[in-house]
């Protein structure tokens, strides 16, 4: 992880069209942006799309970055908003088939690898949460962000984050409890 000031310096160069600086930013943050996107979207392919969209938006809006937050926080905020947008679009249209370039065998292998790391039913339980609650528990409990940092990423007050985390956990526990009971 690079120092925040170095990131800000890189982003200032990106705003002037420096592609090398943008590559550095991507290298530093792509895994975490992908991780946040994956936990919110619940699907690797969609998370990859969201990650791509996040970096494209970041490149276009680099000149708007004012340095009030860390570059990472700014990027995760873009990522979360991108995921919200995609989830909304997803809701409006029927499920799409896998894209041609993706081998379904590879996809299922990746899903299996990922699922192996999760306790039974956790992925379904996470997917069952409303997106706002899901984002709050993902950032706070999965990614380990502090409440103020989570609040900054989500663009809401700390109190709202606390409430979303508590309620998100409660819903998650209920879902996990039901799964155990059945």
């Amino acid at each position, binding site marked *: 992880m690079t120092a925040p000031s170095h990131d800000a310096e890189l982003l200032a160069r990106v705003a002037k069209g420096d*592609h090398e600086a943008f*590559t550095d930013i*991507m290298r530093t943050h*792509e*895994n975490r942006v*992908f*991780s946040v996107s*994956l*936990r919110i979207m619940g699907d*690797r392919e969609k998370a*990859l799309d969201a*990650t*791509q969209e996040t*970096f*494209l*938006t970041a*490149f*276009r809006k680099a000149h708007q970055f004012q340095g009030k937050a860390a570059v990472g926080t700014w990027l995760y905020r873009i990522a979360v908003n991108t995921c919200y947008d995609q989830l909304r679009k997803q809701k409006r249209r029927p499920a799409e088939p896998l894209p041609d370039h993706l081998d379904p065998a590879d996809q299922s292998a*990746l899903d299996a690898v*990922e699922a192996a*790391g*999760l*306790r039974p039913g*956790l992925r379904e*339980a996470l997917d069952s949460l409303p997106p706002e609650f899901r984002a709050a*528990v*993902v950032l706070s*409990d*999965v990614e*380990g962000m502090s409440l103020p940092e989570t609040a900054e990423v989500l663009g809401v007050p700390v109190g709202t984050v*606390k409430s979303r*985390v*508590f309620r*998100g*956990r*409660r819903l*998650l*526990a*209920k879902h*996990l*409890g039901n799964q155990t009971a059945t």
Partner: protein
Amino acid sequence: MRKRDIELISALVEGRLDDESEARALVESSRAHREEYEAQKLAYDALTSIPNVTLTESEQAVLRRDVWSQLQSQPRATKTKAPWALRWSFAAAGLFVVVGLLLAVDLAGGNDSTDFVQSFANISSSLDGAGAGETEAAETTAATSTEEDLEGAAALDMAMPPVEVFAELAAQARSGELSSEQTRTKEQKSSCLETAGLGDHQVIGEVVEDELYLLAIPDGEVLGPDTPITFVQADLCLVSYIDE
């Protein structure tokens, strides 16, 4: 349950307390408190057990390739192109001049009409070649503009750069002087922007300058002095000019 109770239980679940005695006593104080603790603990343990995920090497390669190819295809302000109609009007004007000259030479020199027809055919075919290039350029979006078609248009661009016209229109748009008349539907405009490689833009107005142009700015932005305005030729859905 009080807000403070929930926060104390949460701090206990997350292991943030130096002294847990008060929180533990609270949990044991009622069934509701115990259930709250158990629910929070179950969810928290499950969430914190989720392993880190990273991109695989192939995903990383695809991501970087796709991001870069998208960035390369963004229209750039430095690569301004003359509007399609303007370039054609230059071509037509050139054709008239050449034909006029040939006619004058033909009348003065007394060449027979077959030579003139042959000369005209040669000129027409060379201009048709240029026209074909234009059509090809028109069929590609701004996102796929090649250096070749830019060079092809360069000779015409040099004759009368249209930059001033668009710059003036952009200035009028910024000062709110342009008419707010809209002739295209929202769907038509969105579809045209998509074709022009500007899916992340919104149309803020229309202007007629020989042809109809859509004025687009990035989504979520409000038109201000620093907002780039992209002019998109509405019939061909081609980016014609970006005012930055």
